């Protein structure tokens, strides 16, 4: 299906998310849409898939103007979209997710559908169990399910919005292979991403958006510099590792045993030095998140102890950890980190280290918010509610809310969903704090990020934790093997050496 956008405009209040967009996409190609966070990619795709209506402009399918009223309408035209946050039903089984929305008689035939499902998935080398519950699947598997569902619904054009966020390397391979098969069959694939390397290896042509405007279109092969320049309007360089770790111990785990069903982690011993950055690597759900939460008192360890600057805080709650200079920035910013509905100024009010009287000095916190907005380059106003900010800005806001005098910051996916520029900025700010002696503990699914910024690395594999590996002597390849469960014997050899060294 050939798709053409003509003069598409869409605003959300004062924000112009899409400005006069004009371009077309040929069937049988994989077309990339590249742009940093907030560039307007998702908005345009939601317009194409009927989720939003454009303020003005036209969409042409195979040369004919169409009006797409709803997502159901879009699928009738053969357009299916894989949303950035998976739109599926976690407590239901795969096969039920597959059936919901399908036209047909009152009582769906499971047997037949399961048969068709299996037939369809073998074409792409997927191996999902139709009876499995969706909340037991990884992000990558949920994507596979959604792709199969859209194809089964008759999608001729498939939109994928940031599909490589949060999936493993193998799943990415599988996904790309499937997309190539589909393009060969003559389907139109639109691949939305802010990741240069994904777009470069997959897409035949790419449109670059910046601040709602189409900056240009480029065919493969690409020059990375050129893409970066079009995305950001300027050339940026990656920052490097920080080597400021000092030798006094600020944090210690002793024989920790934690469990959050069905994940259990046993016998973790670890010491964190002041100013040190520790990366926790592993596939999603390998136990990193459980251990991290145990480190800040959100999950109580079943045995063992957690010691913060010489003080035993085992079994204490998060509040107690906070009082001792530990702070946690969770991945789900809006669920655990920020409070939707409150403005930035109000966030500074509740997070402030200023002594709290009964009454609030509103002006003071407004000014403080303005100052932080400036310092952290947050695009927003002190009176903006946090949910109105884009992902990158929410992350900066969360960071700016952390108190200055912290001894340890724990972060979960600090740069997930951020574009390169925001990510580098984020790390710049974190490193400033390391210089002042703050230690950092972070989880990331991005192995390069782990290698680049950590001093030492803990690798997780289904609840097993490696001894700390030195980031300088660890290669990307080695790390990739470890998170996939390979090469662990060697790691434990290292541990034995490490322990005997420690004893001697």
């Amino acid at each position: 299906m050939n798709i053409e956008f003509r003069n598409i405009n869409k605003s959300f209040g004062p924000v112009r998310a899409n400005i006069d967009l004009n371009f077309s996409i040929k069937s049988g190609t994989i077309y990339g849409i590249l742009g940093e966070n907030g560039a307007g990619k998702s908005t345009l795709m939601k317009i194409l898939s009927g989720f939003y209506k454009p303020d003005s402009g036209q969409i042409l399918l195979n040369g004919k103007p169409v009006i797409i009223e709803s997502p159901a309408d879009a699928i009738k035209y053969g357009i299916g979209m894989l949303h950035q946050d998976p739109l599926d039903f976690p407590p239901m089984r795969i096969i039920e997710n597959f059936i919901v929305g399908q036209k047909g008689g009152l009582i769906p035939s499971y047997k037949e559908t399961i048969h068709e499902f299996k037939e369809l998935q073998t074409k792409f080398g997927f191996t999902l169990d139709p009876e499995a519950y969706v909340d037991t699947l990884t992000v990558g598997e949920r994507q596979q399910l959604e792709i199969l569902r859209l194809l089964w619904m008759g999608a001729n054009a498939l939109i994928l919005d940031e599909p490589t966020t949060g999936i493993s390397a193998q799943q990415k391979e599988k996904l790309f292979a499937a997309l190539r098969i589909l393009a060969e069959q003559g389907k139109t694939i639109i691949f939305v991403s802010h990741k240069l390397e994904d777009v470069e290896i997959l897409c035949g042509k790419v449109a670059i958006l910046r601040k709602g405007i189409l900056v240009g279109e480029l065919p493969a092969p690409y020059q990375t510099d050129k893409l970066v320049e079009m995305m950001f309007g300027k050339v940026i360089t990656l920052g490097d590792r920080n080597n400021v770790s000092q030798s006094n111990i600020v944090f210690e785990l002793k024989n920790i045993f934690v469990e959050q069903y069905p994940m259990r982690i046993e016998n973790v011993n670890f010491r964190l030095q002041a100013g040190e950055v520790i990366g926790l690597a592993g596939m999603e759900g390998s136990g990193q998140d459980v251990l991290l939460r145990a480190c800040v008192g959100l999950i109580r360890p079943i045995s063992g102890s957690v010691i913060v600057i010489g003080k035993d805080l085992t079994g204490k709650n998060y509040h107690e950890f906070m009082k001792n200079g530990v702070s946690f920035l969770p991945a789900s910013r809006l669920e655990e980190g920020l409070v939707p509905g409150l403005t930035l100024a109000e966030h500074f009010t509740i997070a402030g280290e200023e002594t709290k009287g009964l009454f609030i000095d509103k002006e003071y916190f407004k000014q403080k918010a303005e100052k932080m907005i400036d310092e952290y380059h947050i695009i927003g106003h002190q009176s903006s509610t946090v949910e109105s900010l884009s992902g990158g800005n929410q992350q900066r806001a969360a960071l700016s809310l952390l108190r200055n005098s912290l001894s340890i910051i724990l972060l979960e996916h600090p740069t997930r969903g951020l574009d390169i520029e925001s990510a580098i900025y984020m790390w710049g700010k974190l490193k400033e704090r390391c210089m002042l002696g703050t230690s950092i503990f972070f989880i990331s699914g991005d192995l390069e990020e782990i290698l680049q910024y950590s001093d030492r690395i803990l690798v997780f594999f289904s609840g097993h934790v490696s001894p700390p590996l030195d980031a300088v002597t660890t290669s990307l390849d080695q790390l990739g093997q470890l998170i996939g469960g390979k090469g662990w014997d060697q790691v434990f050899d290292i541990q034995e050496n490490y322990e005997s060294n420690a004893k001697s």
Partner: protein
Amino acid sequence: MSGDIILLGLAGVIASGAPIVIAVIGETLTERAGVINLSLNGVILLSAMLGFWVSVETNSLFLGFLAGTLVGALVATIVAFSSITLKQSQVAVGFILAITCRDLAYFLGNPIMGSQGPIMLSSSVPLLRDIPILGKILFQQSLMTYLSIILIFVAWYWIFKTRPGLMLQGIGEKPAAAFVRGANVLKMRYVYTIVGGALVGLAGPLYTLSVKPGWKGTITGLDGIGWIVLAITIFGGWNPVRAAFGAYLFAFLQWLGLVLQPYMTSIPSQVLQVAPFPLMILALLFVNLGNTEWMDRLLATLPEKMRLRAIKIIRTMQSQPPGALGTPFERQ
């Protein structure tokens, strides 16, 4: 002989559980769509009174039940309009309606206090009534009791086995995902809120025309039923069969209170009458024990095999609410 008494008692539990079953299934349907209708307690009282009144005037049971259903549907429409269309707090609106309807019932019901009205008689099912034991318990009941039993299975089948039922689960779980799958989320939320409300409204006259005949104002003894229905909906994990089990459990506890009264003269009769309410709440807490941290720690001390089994049992007992329960849906 005493065996017969037990069978009669159990038949009574099935009958007195019927209105609770119907109301719980109504609320389950509503909440499955993501809407909480908190007005139940008032609606049951108001429909009980009005349904009874209509039956007294017209001498028709059918019209009485119809009136109750309409009251329930009407109040549910108010809940739906203010929460779905106006996007107001469902809790606030429901709560105010619960209190208003209750006061209205007591106030408007004065003229018919103590009137004689028609009573629904039982009609036994030929052949089935002769089945030993079960026949006595299940098949010598009133039409509405049969309806309540049928409803359990129809609702269960609808939610879990049919296409619209799957979509209903989706609407309550993640409305945006249901929307991209072609659901008209707002319309379906209206439909299920009103249908659910109508069922709750049916429970009212079922009391005054059958289970506890007559309207006696504040001593009719129906105050509080609506709140317990809300608790049973949670206990039931939004599953009609489990919810019905909860409803019968509550009816059984109430019956037990009556039966034990003569033997427990030292306990004031009010205590035995009220006891089922806290007991039901305890049951609710019990099924959700797995949510507590001390439970995790307790389980951690068990041997591995036993622990895993215990965790499994606790997981199946626990009830997970629909993901989007109580949150409005907005498309840009």
